[in-house]
């Protein structure tokens, strides 16, 4: 447990030292969201109907953006091998890494999402559901992305492969997340989708660390 917290602490401190890079996913999120009104049409009615989907798709893409580098530098300087060899279970260490990554990229997305939704004319009454769905959904995306990142870390050209591996797996999160947000916009009860997201988060939290650790071990074998 001590090692896990130490790793979490180290990752957060490293992220803080390079604060400038933290803004990149947020800028990406903002830009993707802005592209939709430009590409579709600026009519408020239409934007309001597509807003839940647009915010969720943009969040999904933005959360995938930084995943490629999740284990990259540790793999290159050999510290990933040290982590795999350490007495602490690799599953827990992987979970700490994902937690740190989510805190510095996922959480800012969740905080910024209501702003994006307002830009698209999403009603303020639906904001709690939007925030709740992203709070439950983005950790799942981080965990799934980490599985892909662990599997592709030893490949030189993982940039294009990673989305192909991860996006199909992320479909249920997108469906339930966007559905809950859309229901809340219509004044309906979004609880169903949120419960399912919660269930998927529980499943991902328990199973994904094993897949991530397995992926890291496979990558280190090569």
């Amino acid at each position, binding site marked *: 447990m001590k090692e896990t917290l130490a790793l979490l602490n180290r990752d957060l401190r490293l992220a803080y030292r390079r604060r400038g890079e933290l803004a990149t996913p947020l800028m990406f999120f903002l830009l993707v969201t802005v592209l939709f009104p430009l590409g579709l049409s600026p009519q408020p009615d239409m934007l309001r109907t597509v807003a839940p989907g647009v915010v969720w798709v943009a969040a999904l893409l933005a959360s995938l953006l930084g995943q490629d580098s999740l284990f990259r530098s540790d793999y290159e300087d050999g510290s990933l091998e040290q982590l795999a060899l350490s007495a602490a279970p690799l599953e827990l260490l992987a979970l700490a890494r994902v937690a740190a990554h989510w805190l510095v990229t996922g959480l800012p997305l969740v905080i910024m999402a209501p702003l994006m939704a307002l830009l698209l004319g999403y009603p303020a009454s639906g904001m709690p559901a939007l925030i709740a769905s992203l709070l439950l959904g983005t950790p799942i995306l981080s965990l799934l992305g980490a*599985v892909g990142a662990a*599997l*592709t870390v*030893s*490949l030189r*050209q*993982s940039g294009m*492969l990673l989305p*192909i*591996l991860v*996006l*199909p*797996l992320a*479909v*249920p999160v997108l*469906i*339930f997340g966007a*559905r809950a947000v859309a229901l809340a916009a219509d004044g309906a009860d979004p609880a169903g989708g949120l419960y*399912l997201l919660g269930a*998927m988060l529980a*499943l991902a939290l328990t*199973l*994904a660390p094993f*897949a991530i650790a*397995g*992926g890291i071990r*496979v*990558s280190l*074998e*090569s």
Partner: protein
Amino acid sequence: MAAFTWFHRLASPPHVYRLAGLFAPWFAGLAAACIAAGLYGGLWLAPPDYQQGDSFRIIYIHVPSAWLSMSAYSLVAVASAMGYWWRMKLAHTVAAAAAPLGASFTFLALVTGSLWGKPTWGTFWVWDARLTSQLILLFLYFGFMALGRAFEDRRTGDRAASVLAMVGIVNLPIIHYSVVWWNTLHQGSTVFVGRGSDIAPSMLIPLLIMIAGFTSYFGACLLKRIQVELLERERGAAWITELVKQT
């Protein structure tokens, strides 16, 4: 212990190569017989549907393909798991041989589905639950194949792809139900419902024969592909040199 030698011998590439060569013609023959009988039954003997006319007959291709698309992925995942945990090279060979076949049947199911959708639903593609989950299944197959080939060392690629296949098989039911609840236009399941079947026997029997025929065809192709995979992976091994000398 002698009872288990057949199992241990399954880990020996030359033995499996021989077995696959031995069984493939039988599967192919069974497939030819079943598909011929099923097509005759389905295209000539079965009456036209009272609503869809003759266009329903595409189910004799569509349903067996859809069945194989799902079961081939289960086969890939089970073989991957065996290869990952028991470090059986041959299990990885089976998974690698089955994945492109499964992807082809998924593609066939999608194409026949959309061809049937044009006269029936009036459009080639609808964002219906089953079509969408088949499409995502196709991408899962692509991811599995792409990851396996991305590594220079084939063994690392096999192990990486097997982790992905296991993640995929856990996710597959979730993906399926998520798209079912998301949107449903596809008709419900009629072949296997709890209390028997809703299809008339004259239509159902050819369909079941076709499913058996497609599965045997899949088996025959799988065995041949396993042979090819073995030749490719074991190239340079002594038994292959022997084999080449003999022929």
